[in-house]
Structure formats: C-alpha cells, structure tokens
C-alpha cells in the first residue's frame, strides 16, 4: 500500500533482515544494511568500489566538466558533474534496492526549497508490484552494464586505469566508446538536473548552472512572471550553438519527438 504521507512502512524483507541480525542489534546502536555497512567501512559508496567510483567520476567530469576540468568552464565558473556529485547519484541509483523503500521515486508533494514546510521528497514512495518488478530488473541490468563499462574504459587506457589517464586520453576514449559514453552520459544528465534527493545536483549546482529554478512548489510563480517577458536576452554567436541551429530544420523535430510531453 502506498503510504499517503510518503513515510516508509517496514516491509517484510526489512523485518526478516532485522530478526536475523537480532543478536548483533543488541550490540550495535542501529542495524546496518550491507551497503550502509560498506559505506560506513570507509569506501563512501554503496555500490561502487573505490576504483569503480573513481573511473565513473572521471568519466562524468569529462562529459559534463566543471571549472577544474575545462578552461571554458573556469571562465564561466560553471559547476559540472564533480561539483554536482553525479557519481553519488549513479551509485544511489544502482544501490536503490539497498533501501526500503527503494530509492526510485522521491516523495511529494514538495521539498523545502521554495516555502515547503518540510522536505517530503526525502521520503521515497514505496513501489507497487509492477514497479518493483521493472526496477529490480532494470537496476540489476544496469549494475552489470556499469561493471562492464568500467572494465572497458580501463582496458582502453594506456595505463589500464581510466581514472589516471590524461584528460585528452580520457576524451579520446569517451569519443570512441559510443555505448559506454551514452550509458554514463544519460545518467550524468539525470544526476546534474534531477531533484537533489536522488543523490546528485548537490546544492542545486546543476540547476543554477543553467538558470533553471527547479521544483518551485508550493510557492510557484506570480501571474506577472508567467505573462511578461524578462526582457531582451540576446544569444551571442558561438560555434556549437550555430552548428546546431544550422542543422535545426533537419534534426530539430526528429530529436524533439523523443521528448514530447503527454497531453
């Protein structure tokens, strides 16, 4: 049953686990799940090993660079995947089922970022059976894909360690390995621009870097903000933007159909 207040109700699995650890529980201040125990043991991540996390962190920083990763970003002082802690987002997604309820759907109706009484998004929504079924399979498959991708990135690096390779070598590997790049890039985008409760977008730096206000409930926008222009904002010429604009009539719609909203 979905708890309307978004609170976790202990599942059968959690209760069984707790019973199995009962003797331990009398000694420890709190019962730790396997992943929490691993995290507490100093690795810092729930799913990734230290090395795996380093590889993913390095790849994310090339895909969506911050000030320390690219001179242009330094100029803009524009945070990237490292600043947003995207590797934490991906790790949280892969370890979603180490939590109860699983960290798949953040709660509602709002966070405390724009006048909310409390951060209801912190409390994840228990999954319906059909969601459990799908997301168990999906995260299981993603774990496999990430393990394989990390191996492949390492193997492509001259020193057999992607994380230790130079930026230019990392770039050329990521340019070459299309499948691995798309896997990590898609989740890097999610980790940059999703609500921070999923583990990324730390301090909302992803949103701030693009002028996106994020979740604005329960405050919302005033009628004037809806109806009026904010004033001129002329887009200056720039190589990549111009290239996209030149291609737009050809590719705009083709790409956009992938994202059309329901209505």
């Amino acid at each position, binding site marked *: 049953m*979905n708890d*309307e207040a978004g609170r976790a109700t202990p599942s059968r699995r959690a209760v069984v686990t707790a019973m199995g650890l009962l003797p331990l529980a009398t000694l420890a201040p709190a019962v730790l799940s396997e992943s929490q125990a691993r995290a507490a043991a100093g690795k810092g991540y729930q799913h990734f090993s230290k090395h795996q996390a380093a590889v993913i962190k390095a790849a994310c920083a090339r895909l*969506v*660079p911050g000030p320390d990763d*690219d001179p*242009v970003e330094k100029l803009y002082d*524009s945070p990237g995947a490292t600043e947003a802690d995207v590797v934490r987002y991906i790790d949280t997604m892969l370890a979603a089922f180490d939590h109860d309820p699983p960290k*798949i*759907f*953040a*709660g*509602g*109706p*709002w*966070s405390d970022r724009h006048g909310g009484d409390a951060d*209801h998004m912190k409390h994840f929504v228990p999954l*319906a*059976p*059909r*969601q459990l079924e799908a*997301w168990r399979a*999906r995260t299981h498959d993603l774990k496999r894909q990430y393990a394989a991708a990390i191996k492949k990135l390492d193997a492509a690096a001259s020193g057999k360690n992607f994380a230790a390779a130079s930026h230019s070598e990392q770039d050329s590997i990521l340019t070459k390995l299309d499948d691995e*790049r798309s896997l990590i*890039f898609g989740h890097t985008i*999610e980790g*940059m*621009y*999703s*609500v921070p409760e999923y583990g990324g977008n730390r301090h909302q730096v992803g949103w701030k*870097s*693009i*002028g996106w206000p994020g*979740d*604005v*409930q*329960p405050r*919302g926008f005033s009628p004037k*903000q*809806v*109806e009026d222009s*904010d004033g001129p*904002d002329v887009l200056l010429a*720039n190589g*990549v*933007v111009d*290239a*996209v*604009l030149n*291609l*737009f009539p050809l590719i*705009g719609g083709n*790409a*956009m*159909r*992938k*994202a*059309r*909203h*329901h*209505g």
Partner: protein
Amino acid sequence: MADRAIVVGSGAGAAVASMVLTHNGWDVLIFEKGPKYIHGYEKPGPIRTTFSSDELKASRKFEIPDPLSEPRTFRAAAGAQEEVGEVNPLSSCVGGGTVHWDAKTPRFWDIDFKKKSMLGPYPDTDVEDWPFEYADIAPHYKTIERLMGVAGAQSAIPHSPVLKHAPGERGFVMPPGPQQLASTTVAGGCTALGLHPYAFPMAINSRVHDGRPPCNNCGQCSSYGCPIGARIGALAVMRHAVNTGRVEIRDETIVDRVVHNGKRATGVHWIDKHGKHGHSSAKLLVLAASAIETSRLAHLSNFPDPHDRIGRDLMFHNFMDGFGIFLDQRMHAYRGRSTTQCCEDFADPDFPGSRAFAKSMGLPYIRGGIMELGGSQEPIAEGNIYTYILGILRAFDPLNFGKPFGTNFKTLMRASILRDRLAGISHVGEDLPYATNRVDLDPKVKDFRGVPVPRITYSMGAHEQAAIEFFIPHMTAILKAAGASMAAAVPESVSDGLTGTAIPHGAHVMGGMRMGHNPKTSVTDGTGMVHGMENVFVADGSVFPSSGAQNPTLTIMATALRNATKLFGDGHKHVGQNHAHHHGHSGHSGDRGPLPSTGSDPTLPLIATATLTAGLAAARLARHDGDNDSGEDR
C-alpha cells in the same frame, strides 16, 4: 439491497459512469490496475499526494506502466516486424489518464458527429456518423465542464471556426488563469496570419473550487500529477460517486477476464497486488480502462465477435510538432499551465487551400486539428536531446567538430535553444478510422502477471499523410510570424531512423469498441452497450467512431454521460449544482451533492429516486438482448 455494477478502470469514463450509476441506485465496485496517488479528493478541500515537480520521477514512469513489466507490442502492418516496449501508454492509477493530463477541454465539432452525412463518404476508411449528434451531446458537455471546474472565457471563443461548429454556452465556472508568454507569443503569430487563437479551456483552477486551491503556476504541469490538487481531472467527478457511500475502489488490481456465457456477463476474474486471483460478480459490467486496455480485455474475455470488429478502427491523433526558437529572449515556458492558448482553424475542412490540396491528392477533404500553442520541455529531456544532436553533428562534420560532450554540451545547456528559447506548437490532427489499425492480443508476450499484452497494428493512411504535407508549412509560418528566429515542424511520426517504424506516443487513444447501429461494422450499439451482450457497457474512448480533431477527454466524459444517462436514468442531474455551498460549509455538507438544497431530509427522495431509476435501468437493460440496436436514439 442494490444491484452491483463492476467498473473496470477509474479514469475519465469510469468516473462518469460511476457517478451516474451510484445516483441511480447501483452499488459500484471499481477495479483499477494502478495505485492510488491522490488522497482526500472525495471531500471538498486540499488533497494529499506524493506527486511532485520531479522530472526524473516522471521519466522513471511513476504513474505510467513500465515497459519492462507491462510492455505492449507494435507493428506497422500485419506481418511486419514487431517491436516490444512502450506503445502510447496512459497514466495508470486512480484517476487514470486525467491524473497527469494537461486538462485541456475543447469540444468536438458538429461535423465530427456527422462526418459521413455532412462531409460525404471517405473511400478506404471506416468514416461513419456517430449514433448521436452535436446537439445531443452539448448539454452533457456543459455538465462535465461544470463538474470538473473548467476555467475559460466564453467571450474569447471565436465564432469562426469554433462556435460555428460547436455552438452554445460552455459550463465554465471560472475565468482563465495567467497566459504564458510562450503561448501568447505563438498566438500572436496565428493572429498575424488571420487565424483565431483563444484562451485554451482547461480543468485547472484559477480560483478556489471545491475547496481546492488555484494553480500557482509551478510549471511542471502536463505529464505531471498536480502536487496541490489545482487539477484533479476526473476525480472531481468521481468524488460525486464515492460520496454516495456506494463505491468501493480496489486499486492495484487488474481484471484479466470478464466472465460471461456468451450473452450475459456475470462478473470478473481479477489479480490483486499480492498476485492473488479472485472472482467478483455483478449484474452490470462497465469497461472503461481506456481504448487499448478495454479492447485487450474484450479479447481476453472472448466476447462474441462474429464480424471480427473488436479492437479495430483504433485511432491516435495525427500529431505534428512545431518548434520556434527565439534567439533574442527567453520564453520561460516552464512557468504556468502548459500551453494556455489554442487555435482550431486547421480543424476546418474548408480552411483556405485545403480543399484544393485534397483534390490534387485525390481525396475528398483533409483536416488538421486544434493546436496547443507555446509548449517546451525540461532540462533532463533537453540534455538528452543535445547528446543526440551532438552525435549527429559529429557525423555531419567528423573532421572539424569537437567531441560530442564536455563544454560543447554545457554551452548548449546554457544557451538553452531547445528549452528556454523554445516555444512550440503541438498540432492535434484528426486520424481517420481504418479497419487495419487495431488492437489484438500478442501471441507470445505477456505482462509480469502472465496476462497477454495488447499488440497494436498501426499505420497512418492517405488522409493523414496529405494533412501533414499541407499543414506543416503553415505551422512553420505561424512560428515565423510569431517572431521566432528559426522554425521547423515535423510529424510526430518521423522515424527515429533506427528501426524504420514510428510508434505513436501522443497519449490520445480512441476506437477499438466503436459505437454504431450496425453490428457488422461496430462493436457497441448507439449507447455503448456491446452488441450481442446484454449487460456490458463501454464508457471510455474506445467507443469513438472517429477521432475528432480536438483533445478527446471531455468528449469521452460527455459521451459516457450521455450514454449512461440514457441507460441508467438521470438521478444524478442535480450533482454539483450546489457548488457555491461547498465553500461555506465544513466537511460533509457537499457530500450529498445529488440533491437540491430544499432543506428537507435528503434521504427519502434519494431512496425514492434510486428505486425508481434502478427499475428503469433494469427495464432498459432487458431490452438489450438482441443483436439489433433498436435505434432508440433517434
């Protein structure tokens, strides 16, 4: 004890059918295969929900069936290669598709109900008249508009083409909300070209209504559940059913078979969230699970189908999407209700030039449809598109273009040409009925419960292709006239180039159980009762004989209301008429909504009305025992 009806589904049509049935003496047991995410809608006042402004949650399919556990299959034609995955899914939870819709409520036109007699026959299609006409459904439109709480301005609706084809006073109960800059800008382009845009009627509060707050313009609207309950869709009608005390809703329970003897349904077989199987019996079956799911259930139940009509004439809309990029200002379409302006000129078969164009293509006429003006998208979707475009750029210019990520990506996100500088057009073109477009059961693929999934066979016809060719340049012209620096328009069905097929995803799904007087060419009769069955009533968009050229939900609800009233009585006719009283009273005052505030004990007339109408309904149902519709609608 009252007779029991079972309703499959809890969305637009189900809410209306449940309201009519409960107010006419029936007990109603509702099965909804999805969860319940909106709580407290039954009473006037704020709702509680776990819906939120969370793009990731929406893209992870919080309220939509996940193709990993509930896939569908798709093929362009019989014998063509089949794909397994997501095929035009609707939100599946208590409230159905109206939980995350953008609540637009235009009416269909007179010509939609009398297509064949007013516009003439259309070769190679199943174009027919509906069993009723605009004048018959108009009062029901008004009732639904009032019950859902539609915001709109009668004076804003243009006579030509809209009121000319859909006359009458709307049941607007509040004025339109703030108009989005992106919408008014694109509407300006329409006006400059002599078209007639107006404030889009929508069931989103612009003031407190039923104790629910006005919309606060959060912007994450279409395809999100409303976090504050300013938009609760069909649940605003469902509450009038629930408040009779005669309704039980079993969520997370799928009906996988209607039990019947070939003539009369006796109940349903269901599977609940624990995987438990069970049976419930009823005197009346109402199918309202949405067009594809209702057709699937009819197939799963082996309904009599001597003429092979079940699931045929499936229709989506012929969506065309326009994209205007504004390089000199930000359009901030992320503020406010999604697309606050619309324009219906392209729904007119006499739109200048279209007759001649149709003739040149050897077709009787072509129609586009309503346009939603000013839409855009959100950052995760935007980012994903840039990764796709950067990949293409590299292919176009492999030597000089840099890497398809990094600062190139971030520059695009900062410039935001495909989000903050974008104002779009979503054009809802009519999709004609073709018998070859259909739903049947996939012979191999099953959902996670082991139930065969629907297989969709669909290709657009000559009409749709011609309409695309004619209207795409007009859409581009509107965006340019609106001041867009760059503009493009494409059919939604543009192939993604990977598989050579294009799976429609516009979330407007109609047909499969079409109404008609002739059982050889239709599945349900003139009131939505399944031909050849005595007690199976279909109350969703599957009964549409044609798709119209407007957003379908209002017409789904008005059709269900018209049919259910004919079948079961009008004991619901005073429902919601004492809205004004709801605000001033606390708690239960509005819960007995069906009755006028006479000051007398409401219980006695309620029982009397219920008894009388239940008797009438029973008599009515008893007449549905043959293959022939008696033509009582004329």
